């Protein structure tokens, strides 16, 4: 693999040596960074009373990464880790991936087959910036935004004429990434076409097995957009996104090899009209439709079909928002409808959700120094109880450089389709999982068929399954002076009615029937720290750190149920409450150090990022069903990513580097961490 990369590296260094020596591009101080995700209005980042991170397109370009999960993984407080379902997703403030909403240009991605969205399906090639809001954001976004919102904002044509970029990147594991983005504008009409093709052979940490950690796959993304300005006050945007992916499907079942395909098809379409009534009133009319579908099959060695599965989800969402400017203040109100359907294997029927919602937000500036953001959202839903999600936040500017911010908010996550309608029997083990809403009927059916030996006493399904809900507090500071920028945020989340599985009956085959229930309460708290120091035009160093504690309240309140442990190979011992470590998959400490070094005279940037994650547990290994200090942990580890970018001319850039430079892997415990991956890229901007 190293030999294969050598020609690229030498090409790169030649480029470096013969590059023209032009004046350095001045590092622009961004005077007033404007964001939209925290308030759904154009808003200055520095006075926003919410914890927020912005990743710019320049920052993304310099890292040399190509997929959304990779760039998010480099941010403080955003941790990519498989959750208990085994799928990789984002953990923010200690909350699992199911609780973070992912938006592209303000509208949500769907397709959470197992509760987690696969973020590698989003290419970063046309991203203008990524906005990350941490903490409960249901007051604006409703369900799923209980832990936060990540909004991917794509580039749009700004100036008349044609511009854009073409790039090709090759990396270890025969990974190819081809990008083309063309932006065109002529007075009132503008258009943008983005296309990306990505393919890889995948990777394999354990060569002794036939299956790989990630099998070979390829995907294609096409995003055409049209913009038309009817007038200064009425502007139309129509954007579309098509995504297709095919991955080799392989499995060993009863020591027999099975092969097949797994495909994903996604389609998003958004039409939006921006309407400025006058200088005081501004409206946005938005219609969004999306479909996510996956299909997979497996055949055995004799070409006999073993399994066929599909998942087909639709979302249709019209929404209207209006903002009234009243003196220095802004009142925003919105209303919308969600119409959602899902048809999938293991569902006895095609299910539909309907909901209607309104939200109101008041952005109030009583003085030069104080900003208050207050709002709520009300969701009325066809399948679960209505939700009222309030939020209150304040920013106090102590000096021009230093401000304090605090927020409190309510967040919720509705029970998902699976938790309500799943109807699944595991063919290998023989257990059954039933969604809450169909469990009673299906249990009666199974009982009539003689398949049930015993119903668990005290279980009934008469009260609807409740939404999971959270109260979130943030308290932070924002400091920016000359070369130094500092952000500190302390957070606390208390989550109740967490949905978990429980046994509802014993089958006559000795296995269990599971269903879902509101069972536990968890809490998470911690501190996030971000600082950047720009020494001069050449060197900038940033440090990010998160301290996190995440625990189950019932374990803390009643530790007696968990006080005995039997470490493998030894007898039972008694432990104390202080030995309780907390929830699975949570590291107490995560650190990142980023070093950017520029050689303006040769137009070269070096970007080194080092990441550390302290130990975490993935399962209970000693029989008390919680994680304690006697359990086996995944060791803490460090990882480094390096990229070197070099402009040959103003328009032509060469880039090379390595992800996971130190080649750290842990095949037995971390199956999503590939070894060192070299890459080389050529990009032409026009």
């Amino acid at each position: 693999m190293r030999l294969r990369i050598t020609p690229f590296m030498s090409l790169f260094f030649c480029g470096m040596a013969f590059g023209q020596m032009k004046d350095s591009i001045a590092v622009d101080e961004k005077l007033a960074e404007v964001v939209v995700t925290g308030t759904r209005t154009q808003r200055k980042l520095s006075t926003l009373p919410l914890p927020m991170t912005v990743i710019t397109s320049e920052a993304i370009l310099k890292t040399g990464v190509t997929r959304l999960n990779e760039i998010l993984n480099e941010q403080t407080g955003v941790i990519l880790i498989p959750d208990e379902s085994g799928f990789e997703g984002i953990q923010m403030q200690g909350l699992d991936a199911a609780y973070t909403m992912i938006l592209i240009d303000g509208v949500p991605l769907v397709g959470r087959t197992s509760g987690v969205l696969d973020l590698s399906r989003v290419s970063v090639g046309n991203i203008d910036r990524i906005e990350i809001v941490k903490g409960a954001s249901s007051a604006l976004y409703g369900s799923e935004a209980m832990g936060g919102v990540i909004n991917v904002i794509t580039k749009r044509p700004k100036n008349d004429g044609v511009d854009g970029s073409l790039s090709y990147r090759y990396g270890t594991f025969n990974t190819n990434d081809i990008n083309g983005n063309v932006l065109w504008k002529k007075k009132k009409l503008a258009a943008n076409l983005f296309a990306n093709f990505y393919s890889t052979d995948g990777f394999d940490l354990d060569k002794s097995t036939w299956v790989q950690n990630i099998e070979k796959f390829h995907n294609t993304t096409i995003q055409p957009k049209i913009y038309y300005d009817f007038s200064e006050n009425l502007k139309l945007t129509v954007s579309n996104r098509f995504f297709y992916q095919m991955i080799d499907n392989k499995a060993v079942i009863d020591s027999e090899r099975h092969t097949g395909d797994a495909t994903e098809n996604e389609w998003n379409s958004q039409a939006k009209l921006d309407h400025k009534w006058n200088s005081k009133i501004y409206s946005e009319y938005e219609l969004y439709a999306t479909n996510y579908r996956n299909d997979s099959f497996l055949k055995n060695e004799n070409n006999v079909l073993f399994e066929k599965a599909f998942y087909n989800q639709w979302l249709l969402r019209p929404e209207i928002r209006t903002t009234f400017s009243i003196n220095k203040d802004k009142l925003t109100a919105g209303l919308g409808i969600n119409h959602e359907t899902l048809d999938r294997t293991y569902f006895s029927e095609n299910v539909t959700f309907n909901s209607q919602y309104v939200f109101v937000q008041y952005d109030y500036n009583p003085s030069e120094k104080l900003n208050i953001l207050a709002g709520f959202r009300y969701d009325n839903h066809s399948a679960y109880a209505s939700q009222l999600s309030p939020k209150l936040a304040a920013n106090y500017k102590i000096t021009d450089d230093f401000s304090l911010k605090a927020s409190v908010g309510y967040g919720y996550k509705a029970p998902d389709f699976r938790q309500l309608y799943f109807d699944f029997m595991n063919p290998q083990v023989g257990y059954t999982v039933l969604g809450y809403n169909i469990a009673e009927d299906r249990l009666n059916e199974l009982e009539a068929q003689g398949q049930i030996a015993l119903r668990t006493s005290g279980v009934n399904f008469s009260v609807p399954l409740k939404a999971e809900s959270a109260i979130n507090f943030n308290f932070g500071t924002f400091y920016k002076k000359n070369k130094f920028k500092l952000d500190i945020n302390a957070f606390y989340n208390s989550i109740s009615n967490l949905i978990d599985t429980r046994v509802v009956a014993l089958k006559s085959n000795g296995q269990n029937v599971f269903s879902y229930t509101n069972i536990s309460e968890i809490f998470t708290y911690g501190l996030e720290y971000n600082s950047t120091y720009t020494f001069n035009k050449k060197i900038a160093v940033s440090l990010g750190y998160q301290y996190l504690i995440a625990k189950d309240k019932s374990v803390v309140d009643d530790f007696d149920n968990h006080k005995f442990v039997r470490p493998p190979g030894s007898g039972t011992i008694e432990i104390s409450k202080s030995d309780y470590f907390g929830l699975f998959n949570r590291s107490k400490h995560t650190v990142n150090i980023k070093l950017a070094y520029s050689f303006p005279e040769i137009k070269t940037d070096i970007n080194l990022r080092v990441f550390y994650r302290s130990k975490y547990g993935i399962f209970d290994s000693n029989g008390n069903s919680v994680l304690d200090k006697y359990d086996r942990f995944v060791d803490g580890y460090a990882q480094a990513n390096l990229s070197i970018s070099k402009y040959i001319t103003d328009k032509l850039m060469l880039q090379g580097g390595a992800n996971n430079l130190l080649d750290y892997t842990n095949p037995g415990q971390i199956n999503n961490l590939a070894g060192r991956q070299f890459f080389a890229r050529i990009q032409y901007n026009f």
Partner: protein
Amino acid sequence: MNTKFLKLTLLALVLFTASCSNDDNETVVAETETVSNLEAPSTASGYTKFSFSKNAVVTTDDWDIAFRGTTILVNGGVKGSDATEPARTGQGAVSIVSDIFANVTTVPANETFKQDTATLYAIPTGGGNGWYTYNVVGLHIIAPIAGKVFVVKTHDGKYAKFEVLSYYKDAPAEPNYMTSVAGYYKFNFAYQANSNTTF
């Protein structure tokens, strides 16, 4: 020379102490035995019956506990609706104690003992209710709960205690639901052959 003498003295001392303790106390401390790979049928083909006094699988009516899948029966009470269950011919019962196995030295109060009924077993079934936990997302592993000790009144009114150590063949330290073979019990037990209520 010196070391030899020392060794002999120590040996004599040990022997003396050992014989002393036997003479002092009439209670026989029940030995802890370990049973490995006791195969429990997984389907409706019946139960594997076990006798503590014989430390063996039996097919007769003098069994104390019986296994099928994750279900454990006791030889006392009423037979349930399942036709393959053995009839309860003994006076068995179970009391569930949360403690370290070795620390359970006395038999709990009479009223804590339960027998199987037609609808509820003395050792409740289901993850988190009886002797094991099971999570449907994640590992799919039947994991014995540490510190669950079952004090059993045997079919003939003696006492034994047992704790389950593993549900998988050869008791792997970290069972895997794809590769480990389920339905093979490993457990510790101590049987008090006298009619004593201590172990």
